Every structure is written in structure tokens, then in C-alpha cells.
């Protein structure tokens, strides 16, 4: 069964450093998403992406964040200058139709900022 994959599974970085989280969505999906979950809190929407551009973003997704689909398979989330409060589990998801119809989630990347 096709699945969304994410790398790395765990990343530790120092405050102020740039990090890139990588995702490989399901191959025939056209819509891509990032969510995050701070420990003990809700899973929160960050951004959705379609046709090589952001279709929607939350207030969390400020100028420190960016997304990119650098090739036909990867979808990345970049945090330009990490803060302690960026420590969280980051989930990538993809869907074939638009909207929340059925989003398939990856296993997540745990980001720890020290």
C-alpha cells in the first residue's frame, strides 16, 4: 500500500540553525500539507500546497517557514532560524482530491531545538 514517508525521523538542532524536513508524498497525490504537534498539544495545521504554490497557511506559518517541491517526488519544510518553541513533531500529509477529503499522513519527524 502506498504511504507517505518522512526523513529524518528525529532531528536535533541548535537554536538559530536552519532545518529542512523532508517528505515523499504518495506518488499520484497532488495536494500536500504540513502539520505539527507540540508535545502534549493538538495537531495543528501549518500549510497546504498545490500546483507549486501555497494554497493556504495558518498564522503559525510565518516568514521563518517555507515549503518547496524541489522535484517530482519530495516536499520539504524549511525553518530558517529555529527557536526553542519550534520543537515539535512535524507531520507531512498528502491527498489526491483537494480539501480535507482524505489526507494520508507520514510517521512524522521529531524536531528538537536546543
Amino acid at each position, binding site marked *: 500500500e502506498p504511504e507517505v514517508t518522512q526523513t529524518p525521523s528525529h532531528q536535533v538542532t541548535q537554536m538559530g540553525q536552519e532545518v529542512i524536513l523532508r517528505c515523499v508524498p504518495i506518488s499520484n497525490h497532488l495536494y500536500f500539507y504540513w502539520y505539527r504537534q507540540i508535545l502534549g*498539544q*493538538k495537531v495543528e495545521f501549518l500549510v497546504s500546497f498545490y500546483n507549486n504554490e501555497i494554497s493556504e497557511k495558518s498564522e503559525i506559518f510565518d516568514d521563518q517557514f517555507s515549503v518547496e517541491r524541489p522535484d517530482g517526488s519530495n516536499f520539504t519544510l524549511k525553518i530558517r532560524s529555529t527557536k526553542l518553541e519550534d520543537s515539535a513533531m512535524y507531520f507531512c*500529509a498528502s491527498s489526491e482530491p483537494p*480539501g*480535507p477529503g482524505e489526507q494520508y499522513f507520514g510517521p512524522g519527524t521529531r524536531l528538537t531545538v536546543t
Partner: protein
Amino acid sequence: AQSVTQPDIHITVSEGASLELRCNYSYGATPYLFWYVQSPGQGLQLLLKYFSGDTLVQGIKGFEAEFKRSQSSFNLRKPSVHWSDAAEYFCAVGAAGGATNKLIFGTGTLLAVQP
């Protein structure tokens, strides 16, 4: 404001017992409703979804959920829990009609299963 509430943070049930996990939502538009499960080290797996029609929906692994518009609820049930059901369960809501792509999640309910 749009929100999802899962009032039970942690539930413990005995294997073979029935299970009900509660979910209430507040959403201005017609909702799409989902239950996801997350096992340790795994991603969020979709258990079931409600878009329209029959308010009792069946999902994978023997789970079902009932949409009650009057109570703004979408509770998850299973008649007989197995030890492998121990995981964290998330209720989520999305907008019908594609007005927005995002899912809004509850805080999750951690299910422990006693032998």
C-alpha cells in the same frame, strides 16, 4: 471559533470490553468528520470518516462512529477492544465544499488496554 474537543485525555479499558471515545466539535460550516489513530512511532492512520448520508459509519479494525448533529458529536465506538488497539486516537473536522483544506484536530485520547 472552530474547535474539536476530546474530553478524555486517557482511558483504560479491559481487553474484550466495549469502548466509546467522545468527540465534540464546533464548526461554522457543514463538517467533514474523521477519526485517526496513532500507534507509537507511526503516522496518523485514518480509521473512518463522515461526509454525508448515513450517520453511523463503519471504519477499519472494527471501529464505528455516529454523527449526531444535534449534539455536535462524533463518538467512536468498538464493541470489543483488542490489546492491539492501544494507541492514541484523534478526532478531526474539516470543511465540506473545499472552502479550506485544513483539518482541525482534538487533543487526542490515549487508550490503554488491560489484559
